[in-house]
Structures are given as structure tokens and as C-alpha cells.
């Protein structure tokens, strides 16, 4: 079966954030134009059927001009299945009402906004250039054109911040009637401005206190904690595209530095713009054998509220999960780290923060 999900990467950014280590390049009109042409070429080189989800990520997709956006979106419309989810990532300062109207015109029905925080001092430290007013405008325009499924990305854990800062951010977000929230703890990655200038994140104990607070606070406000860092008001508003990844399903990945998973093969695109412009897209391919597939299946599915479905697992890997991992399950259960019922096993909400140690318990047997 062909993948039903499509990811497109737009690497351009107007500013580089101090914590970001994704594939990105400074926006340049000539390059952007050329890039989109090559991107569409790459897209058409795959025989893609209609998709249930399309996600345009970055970089900053909204840094493209109106015309460029229209060029891109006009090529995507035909891939939309009925009952689709079509998302785009945006930065508040790069948008105007016209671009948002364009989203609506071409069927985008979910917008993920890089808010990060409502504390403008912290925003500056993060290397972000928008203001709270920009966020307000974007939300107003979205509501005006009728895109009500929007999500905020928030970041927490910069040195010098506290639980109170996070509470303020959550209160502000809730006041905008968001249906979905992603909350990421700051990680200082090598090759970022933060790393070089020795900026630090809070320690693990402090981060955990904040994480526990977030879960409880959002629970009180009716949100479902459906993935390690993701919350939604109901199942309707879970990110269906991202669930593709977390449920180990296949997807197309198009664009600079993108990766995809097609027909049992994971592949990685080049991160060099020059190579990409020479139509050299894929730089690495790996056939995922059954053992690796099981590794990935466990690692990914445990991130979600759905956890591991025994029937599906047993069928895929031809063994009985509950029998095979009997000891591990007993130990983890004793420590209240997992919940198990007749059909599935999942990690309890707060303990998703030590997910890697739990995953390791299982995969050490592989």
C-alpha cells in the first residue's frame, strides 16, 4: 500500500533561532524560487496517490512570498484525499491576511504557529523576532477566514525561567482558544547559537517539575495528553500527520534534508542546497528489516496515548507481546510506569518524561 502522508520541507528562514538545529538556510528570493521548482520536480518524481495528510514544515514555510506560496500550494491540491488534514508551519511575523486567505483557498485546514513564549524578553533571548501583537493578528486572521484548527508551539526550560513563566504562557494560549498545543523542553544542541554561547537549560529535576505542572494544568483545562509533548482538546484535533510518524506508518518526505519511509525503506535527502539544486535528492537509504521495524514500532508507539496494540503487534512480528516481555511488563507495572489493559499497553502520562528508559527495557531484548 502506498503512503497516505506527505511531508514537504521549506528550509528558508528570515532569522535563525538560537536553539534551532533543523535544516535551514537564510531566505533569498532567487533561491526560494529555484528551490520550489526543484521541489515540485522531486514531488512529481514519486507516483503519489491521494493523501490523508500533507504537512508543510520548515524552516519557515511562511517566509515564502505570496506568489511563491501560491505556486507551491497550487501543485499540492490534487494530492488531497477527501477527509484530509493539510497543515502548515508558520512564524507570526511572516504572515499577513493575504497569505492566510491563500491558505484557505488551497485547502489548508490546520496551522501550527511558532509562538514559543508570550514573554517578550525571553522571545528575544531565543532569537525570535515576533511580538505578542503578531500572534494576536495571526489568530484573528485565521478565525476570519475560518481556519479554527490552529496549534501553538511553546518552548520551556531556558535558564532563568520558572514554572510561573510556563503558567503565563499556557494561560495566554488558552485565552486564544487553541485546539492543540505542543510543548517542548529546550535542548541545547551542538552547532546552535545557544550551544556556542554556553546558554543552559534548566536541570532535569526542574524540567520535570514543569512537565508535571503542564500535564496537570492542561488536564484541568480539558486537554488530552496524547503524545510526549503534544496536547489536544479532543481526538479530532490530534495531529493526524504526526501520528503517522508515531504509529510507524509510511510517508513521503520531499525537500532539502527531508526523510521519508516508503515500501519498507527509510531514506534521507541531502542537506546541501547545491546538491539539491543538482537534482541529487536521496543520500541515504536503509531497508528496515523485521528486527529494526520492531525496534522502531516500540520506540514510536510508546510515545502516544494509544501505546502498543497487542493484536497489531502480534500480527506484525509474529510473537505475543505480553508473553515475550512478561518480566519487563511486570517490573514496569510494579513501578506504575505503564498501564495495561486487554488490548494495549501504554506509558502513564507523567512517566512519558522517562520514556527512553522504558523503551530501553523492551528493546534490550531485541
Amino acid at each position, binding site marked *: 500500500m502506498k503512503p497516505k502522508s506527505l511531508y514537504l520541507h521549506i528550509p528558508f528562514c528570515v532569522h535563525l533561532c538560537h536553539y534551532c538545529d533543523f535544516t535551514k538556510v537564510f531566505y533569498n528570493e532567487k533561491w526560494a524560487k529555484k528551490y520550489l521548482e526543484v521541489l515540485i520536480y522531486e514531488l512529481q518524481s514519486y507516483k503519489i496517490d491521494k493523501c490523508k495528510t500533507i504537512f508543510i514544515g520548515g524552516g519557515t514555510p511562511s517566509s515564502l512570498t505570496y506568489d511563491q506560496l501560491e505556486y507551491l500550494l497550487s501543485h499540492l491540491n490534487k494530492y488531497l484525499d477527501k477527509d484530509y488534514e493539510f497543515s502548515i508551519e508558520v512564524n507570526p511575523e511572516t504572515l499577513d491576511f493575504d497569505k492566510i486567505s491563500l491558505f484557505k483557498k488551497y485547502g489548508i485546514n490546520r496551522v501550527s504557529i511558532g509562538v514559543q513564549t508570550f514573554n517578550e524578553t525571553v522571545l528575544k533571548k531565543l532569537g525570535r523576532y515576533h511580538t505578542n501583537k503578531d500572534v494576536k493578528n495571526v489568530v484573528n486572521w485565521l478565525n476570519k477566514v475560518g481556519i479554527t484548527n490552529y496549534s501553538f508551539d511553546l518552548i520551556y526550560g531556558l535558564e532563568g525561567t520558572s514554572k510561573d513563566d510556563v503558567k503565563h504562557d499556557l494561560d495566554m494560549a488558552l485565552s486564544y482558544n487553541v485546539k492543540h498545543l505542543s510543548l517542548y523542553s529546550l535542548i541545547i544542541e551542538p552547532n546552535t547559537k545557544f550551544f556556542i554561547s554556553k546558554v543552559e537549560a534548566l536541570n532535569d529535576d526542574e524540567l520535570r517539575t514543569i512537565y508535571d505542572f503542564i500535564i496537570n494544568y492542561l488536564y484541568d483545562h480539558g486537554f488530552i495528553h496524547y503524545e*510526549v509533548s503534544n496536547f489536544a482538546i479532543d481526538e479530532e484535533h490530534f495531529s493526524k500527520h504526526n501520528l503517522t510518524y508515531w504509529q510507524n506508518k509510511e510517508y513521503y518526505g520531499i525537500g532539502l534534508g527531508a526523510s521519508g519511509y516508503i515500501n519498507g525503506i527509510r531514506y534521507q535527502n541531502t542537506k546541501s542546497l547545491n546538491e539539491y539544486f543538482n537534482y541529487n535528492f536521496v543520500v541515504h537509504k536503509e531497508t528496515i528489516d523485521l528486527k529494526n521495524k520492531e525496534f522502531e514500532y516500540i520506540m514510536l508507539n510508546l510515545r502516544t496515548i494509544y501505546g502498543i496494540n497487542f493484536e497489531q503487534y502480534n500480527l506484525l512480528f509474529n510473537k505475543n507481546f505480553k508473553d515475550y516481555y512478561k518480566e519487563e511488563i511486570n517490573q514496569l507495572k510494579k513501578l506504575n*510506569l505503564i498501564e495495561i489493559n486487554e488490548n494495549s499497553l501504554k506509558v502513564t502520562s507523567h512517566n512519558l518524561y*522517562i520514556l527512553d528508559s522504558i523503551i530501553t527495557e523492551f528493546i534490550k531484548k531485541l
Partner: protein
Amino acid sequence: MSINQKFIRNFSIIAHIDHGKSTLADRILELTETVEKREMKEQFLDTMDLERERGITIKLNAIQVRYRAEDGNDYTFHLIDTPGHVDFSYEVSRSLAACEGALLVVDASQGIEAQTLANVYLALDNNLEIVPVINKIDLPSAMPNKIKEDIENIIGLPTDHAPLISAKRGLNIKEVLEAVVKYIPAPTGDENAPLKALIFDSYYDAYRGVIVFIRVIEGKLSVGDKIRMMNTKTEYEVLECGVRTPREVKKDELGCGEVGWLTASIKNIKDVQVGDTITNAQRPASEPLKGYRKMNPMVYCGIYPVDNDKYGELRDAIEKLQLNDAALVFEPETSQALGFGFRCGFLGLLHMDVVQERLEREYNLDIITTAPSVIYHVYLHDGTKLILENPSKFPSPQEIDRIEEPFVTVEIMTPSDYVGPLMELCQNKRGIYKELNYIDETRMILIYEMPLSEIIYDFFDRLKSSSKGYASFDYELSGYKESKLVKMDILLNGEVVDALASIVHRDQAYHRGHKMTVKLKTVIPRQQFEVPIQAAISGKVIARTNVKAVRKDVLSKCYGGDISRKKKLLEKQKEGKRRMKAIGSVEVPQEAFMALLSTDDE
């Protein structure tokens, strides 16, 4: 055909670690064109990688070198290598016994150190003619005249003829060779007497059995001879004999005064004890050569496979090592915490280190070693005497009347500036002050009697840090003495871990218990639950810490492209877990079992 003894010179090189022994040996081989330059690997005599890396010589080797001297005669040199560490002092003494002389190599900037002295005394004990050689004279910090003066004052050796060389640069090496001809006596054994050959080394060859290195002291040895080891009382027939140049050269016989090897289809290295005398079984000598001693292990530790399924592989590996290492002893033991493994005995700490590293490196085994222990004599109230080298096997305190532990005499050589801190160190290590002597105006020898267990426990590093690296030391067993000793248990998550038990002095128990629990807290990673670590004596807890439960261990962002990265991270975590030992439900890394050794005592 045998060589005329007049033209044979048998000698060793004595030097402190890093003073250039192996480099000089290389230069000698080069100059005599025994080994062609293109074949030279640096430091030819050290054949094991481990030796090369650590700059120490573990296995002995003997090489025949031909040299045409200035007097026009062709001489045959036998250069006998000696190990350079105190653990192997008996082996050193036997290889010295195979010589008539020794080159004493002293670093022109460092001067004489404790171990050099120890080996010099061994050489003097064996009546060797000692030729001092001052090395590294090319260094800016070289003080050859000062060093010569020291040698005369401290050892009492004349240095008029001492060659001043740089082995590294090949400077004045010929002078060394001439000094060997002139000052080292030729062998003088009676070639018609019954055979007496000294065994000074051996190693195991999978195809030919044990290869025995010998020095023919009297008589001669021929292929086909029936030989007898006089101490182990075993007999064999010589199948092959010869010399090393360093390539193996087979000969029909080894004459009086010669140094070489023999094979006799010997399957068990225990039959070939260093220091034993080989004689002719048909025409035996009346008595063996003097100086034979059976080597006894001084230090013991448990060695376990991390993965219990590897027990068989570990046994095979230790057995193979033992083929080459007559001093290594082992027997199976079981630990509740670690499963099946072996209790192994070693000559000393370096010997223990070398064996551990070879198991890991050459046999690719993941092993856990427990903290080393000495051999205790435990007397019970009912008069029974127990000899115990495993702390976890100690009887309950109620049954014990008294415990004796081994003491050693420690000689520390140090610049006088550091005597204060070093005495304090020795005092903290339960040392009993014996003597303090000046060697010259700046250096002193400090002598203490001290429990061997205290030397095992972090002594070397602290000696070095108390003296900015300048002090060196040497030790010798002096006997057993009663001490107030108690067994300290360590509990993880409420369970006693037998492999972490140790014997400590009662007055130091609280301190050690505290240090140990704090150290374990730093090496045991956070687990999914809080883990209490306790130290206890006779069931009474004397120290406690906790390893807090892990609070965050997740990659918070995981989307399409991130999967491979996350996978790598988890693979690494999985690998780390594989290396840990699950004790109950607590995962303990290998280092934890050595934690006792590395606690920083303040």
C-alpha cells in the same frame, strides 16, 4: 658447536620505567645489525602490545647478538630482558641470576629512583658486575655529572667508565658495547660437569608446548638429552634447542655459559617453574642452583563475566593466559550478585591489571572485577584458622577470635620537600614509622611498615599526588600481624551485595563506609526508582546515600527526520544497559565493583 666461553657476555639492562631500557636494547640490536633497520619496530624486545603501550616489559626475552669488538675478536652477547615492576621482582632476580653483569641505565635528568635501587640490590645480590650508563644526555635538563656523583654516593659504584649516551638518538652506543666486553666478566662454568641450567622464563606455544628459556651454568645440553627439573621433579626429552637472534635459530646443543631455549613437548607450564634447575636425568647434578622460590599470589580479586552465558569463554581465556603465566592462580567461585566467576590470585596490582586488560582486549570479554583483597588469617574461638581472600566468605563476628593481615615494608624515595605530606599519607594508611634517611642533600628514603591492603587501596595515586609525581616506592612482604578488622557490607535497595563487601579497619569503618556510599552514588546511574545505598557492619547501618529516581529521559521532539537520530540514541542506551549488571532490580555498572579503590580519601 659450542662457543668458547671467553667470548660470551651475558647481561641484563636495569632501569626505572621510562628511563630508556627498551630503547637502548633496540639500539644495541640495530648497531650489531642483529635486526635490520627496516624490520625494527620500536622497542623490539617488548613483544606484547600491552607492553609497548604501557612502556613496561612483562615477559622476559633473551636475544643473542654478535659483536666484533675493537680488540678484533667476535663476541657473543646474550641480552636478557627483565620486567621493570615490583610485582615481578622474583622473575627479575632469576633473569639476573642468568647473567654475569648488568647495564644500569639512569636518566640523566631524573636520577636514581626507588625501583632502580631495588633492582640494583637484586643484581648485587646475584654478584653481578654493574656498568652504569647515563642516558638521555641530549635533554636540556640533563645533569650527567650530578647523576654520576649520585650513583657513586648512593650505590657506591665507580662511574669513571660510565658511557654517556642518548639511546633515542643513537649517541655513543658503541661505547656501551665496548664496556660490556671490557667490564662484564665471561662465564666460568665447568663444561665437563653435570648439566645445571637455570630456567628464567617460559611461554606456551600451541604447537610445541612450553618453550623454556635457560642459561647453561655448568655442563652442556643437547637435543635428545633426557632432562629433569630438579624442584618440580619432572622429566622430559629435549626435542629442540637453540637461540633467538631475535629470530629463532635451532642448534644441536647449548654449551656452557650460553643462553637459549628448549622444547620438550611440555604440556603444563606449572612443570616449568622460573628459578628451577634443569639437569641431565642420566647424569644428574648433586644439588640444584640456589635461589629457587615458588611464587605466591599476594592479591586476589573476583573476575566475572558481565553476561553469565560467557562463563565458559572466560574460563577458557583464563586457562589460556595461565599457560603463559605460572604466577596466575584461579578457582571457580559463585557470587549471589555476579553469578559464576573466578577468584584469581596475582603477584601484585600491576599483574592483576595486566591480566584484566588482556582478558578484555585479547579475548574480547566484558568482565567485572571485584575490588582486590589480600589474604587474611582468621582465627576462630574454637581454634580453627581460616585463610580467606574473599571478604564475603568471612564468618560472623561472634565466631572470630582475631584476624591477622599481611604487612609490607615500604621504601619511599622522595625529594625531601615532600617528606611531610608522605609521612601523613603513610600515617593515614595505618603505617608504622621505621626509618628516614638522607640519600644526598635533597633526597630521602622513608621506610614504613604498612598493611598490604592499604597499598592496594589507592596508595600509588596518592603517593604521586602528595609528591607532585616525584616520589617512587617499592614494597616487600614482611609478615602477618593482628589488626582490628571488620567486614563491611554494602546494601543496594535493601539487599546485601556480596561482591561489594570489603574488610576495613574498625577505626576507619565509618569514614570508608561514607566514602564508599558517596562514590557508589556517583557511579550508579539514576534508575526508574529511588535506590538507597547503605554501608553496614554486622547488620548495623553506618552510612547511607540515595540514588534518586530518574526524572527526565526522553527526546521531547520526534518527527519524521528525527527517527534515525532517536534510534541511535536508544541503541547507545541499550548498549550501556548491556554492560551493566542487574542486581535484584538495580542496574550496576562495572566500575561500581572497583569503587572501593578509587574513592578519594581526604
